[in-house]
């Protein structure tokens, strides 16, 4: 059998045998990627010294602790968390819409979050940092409602959803540009760094404003996985199986929107992570969401940390935002999926 079954009083669980194994592999990959990322920079630090510093051991160089804890670790952690958030959001939207292309960055949810966050940066520059995720969430939610009412009707074609999403995305991006053109120069430059989809200069402040969102919404996503499986079979079948379709879907949209919004609020619009991670995840562990959600979450983490590493390495000392790297890989992949989808 390909499954691990756990049963004790009142509790039973079945997961694909590959899930725990892949979780271990990916956790290892994340550790390696993060170590690489922590060592990288104008001031290189060896992996051995990184591990020592993280364990609180003395490396004989007091600068190490400062560089790692104050400069590089927050940035790497933000990259990891953003990747996780975007990947789970993408998994949820792909499952709900039964559309393999429904990534929050493609259907406009990230653009809505960006617009709301930029509005806050430009119009209320003195607003505290925790208002960013909140406003991004509001923007993403508004966008989700718009998409839902325009294109989500049962039976509407996958391509229609994508087209309407791209249209709404363009509108939101245009308003964002407008905001930037007329904004105060100092605020605008802040917004621009952030909009590029980068984890540059992120501090522990961002880590702690993002963390609560993950702590609330990741467990929610995992508990809703069962219902996502049912909804993934279509409304009629889900209803026939006894799913409270509207309620479960509403909750899942809320979780997907919250995670996308929180991710975008911390690192700008890092595109295509929510598209690629679930696809790779399905190749690894299949379509059942109890396993797919954690696996694609970890994959998302690896992707963004690696993208940040590559962005800082490829053309060093020039630094590319990690969003540029994910787009360079993700856009061709999206086109490939689009063409394959059309053939069916």
């Amino acid at each position, binding site marked *: 059998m*390909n499954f691990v*079954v756990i*049963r004790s009083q*009142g*509790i*039973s*669980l*079945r997961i694909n045998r590959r899930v725990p194994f892949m979780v271990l592999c990916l956790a290892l990959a994340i550790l390696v990627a993060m170590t690489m990322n922590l060592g990288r920079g104008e001031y290189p630090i060896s992996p051995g010294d990184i591990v020592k510093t993280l364990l609180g051991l003395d490396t004989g160089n007091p600068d190490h602790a400062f560089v790692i804890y104050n400069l590089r670790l927050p940035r790497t952690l933000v990259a990891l968390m953003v990747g996780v958030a975007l990947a789970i959001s993408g998994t949820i939207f792909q*499952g709900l819409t*039964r559309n*393999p292309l429904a990534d929050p960055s493609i259907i406009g949810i990230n653009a809505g979050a960006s617009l709301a966050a930029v509005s806050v940066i430009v119009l209320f520059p003195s607003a505290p940092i925790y208002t960013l995720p909140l406003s991004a969430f509001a923007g993403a939610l508004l966008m989700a409602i718009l998409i839902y009412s325009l294109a989500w009707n049962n039976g509407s074609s996958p391509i229609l959803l994508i087209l309407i999403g791209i249209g709404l995305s363009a509108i939101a991006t245009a308003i964002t540009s407008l905001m930037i053109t007329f904004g105060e120069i100092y605020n605008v430059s802040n917004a621009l760094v952030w909009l590029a989809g980068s984890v540059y200069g992120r501090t522990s402040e961002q880590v702690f404003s993002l963390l609560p969102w993950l702590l609330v919404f990741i467990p929610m996503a995992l*508990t809703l996985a*069962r219902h996502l*499986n*049912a909804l*993934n*079979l*279509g409304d*009629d*079948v889900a*209803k*026939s*199986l*006894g*799913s*409270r379709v509207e309620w479960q879907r509403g909750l899942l949209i809320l979780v997907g929107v919250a995670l996308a919004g929180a991710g975008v609020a911390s690192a700008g619009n890092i595109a295509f992570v929510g598209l690629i991670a679930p696809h790779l995840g*399905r190749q690894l562990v*299949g*379509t*059942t969401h*109890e396993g797919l959600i954690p696996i694609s979450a970890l994959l998302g983490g690896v992707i963004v940390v690696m993208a940040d590493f590559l962005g800082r390495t490829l053309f060093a000392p020039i630094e590319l935002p990690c969003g540029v790297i994910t787009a360079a890989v993700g856009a061709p992949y999206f086109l490939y999926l689009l063409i394959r989808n059309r053939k069916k």
Partner: protein
Amino acid sequence: MKGLSTKSLSLAYDGATIIRDLNLAIPGGQISALVGANGCGKSTLLRGLARLLKPRDGIVYLDGNSILNLSTKEIAQQLGILPQGPVAPEGLTVRDLVAQGRYPYQNWLQQWSIKDETIVQQALEITDLLKLADRALDTLSGGQRQRAWIAMALAQDTDILLLDEPTTFLDLAHQIEILDLLYDLNQIQGRTIVMVLHDLNQACRYADYLVAVKDGRIFAAGEPKLVMTKEMVQEVFGLECRIVLDPVVGTPMCIPIGRKTKINHQQIE
């Protein structure tokens, strides 16, 4: 009262009333077939019976209770429906699909009880899918895929099974394979089966109770040999035909008359 029945049921889509003031009692433990011309409302009626469509008026009863008063999960433990042409997500395996049938019995803590496992295994066995259980649905033939969906509905372990045109898009051999499977489920396990069928002759052969629907109303209902008359076919389908007996099982068969009536003796010989 056991089983599924309706009282003055009216169903509407986007404001257009499809089913009007319809009274129907589905006989328990039997196979019922809904037949009628395209657009007559037979699929709508099935969706209404399965609470996929909320009645505009009237009541659907399940074991004497209005289905509006039952939770959707309770209904799912007594009544399963297979909609027309369901589509599975890419890469979903047969076993995972069939396991979904256990959804109404599971909760956050109980996700895979011993009973779940046994019933899924049985459903795979009955539908002869054990060997294909780990294959992805999109790699199977139409007939195998339809069997997998039926297996999912079986795993739901309900007394009543509703199916909307379970044989569409299948070739004749696979149509008979599916109908035989449903017949076995009825004969061996005593399940009540209600299906929408296009083929009148198959409906007459497999159903104990035939319901002819015309313009959202029941035109005739009862045993096929009583319902299936050339007057009924004329009225419901607007087709002139002759009724003969099925040479294999003796149920009525409809032979359309059409325009080509010149007898070709050579071919008969």
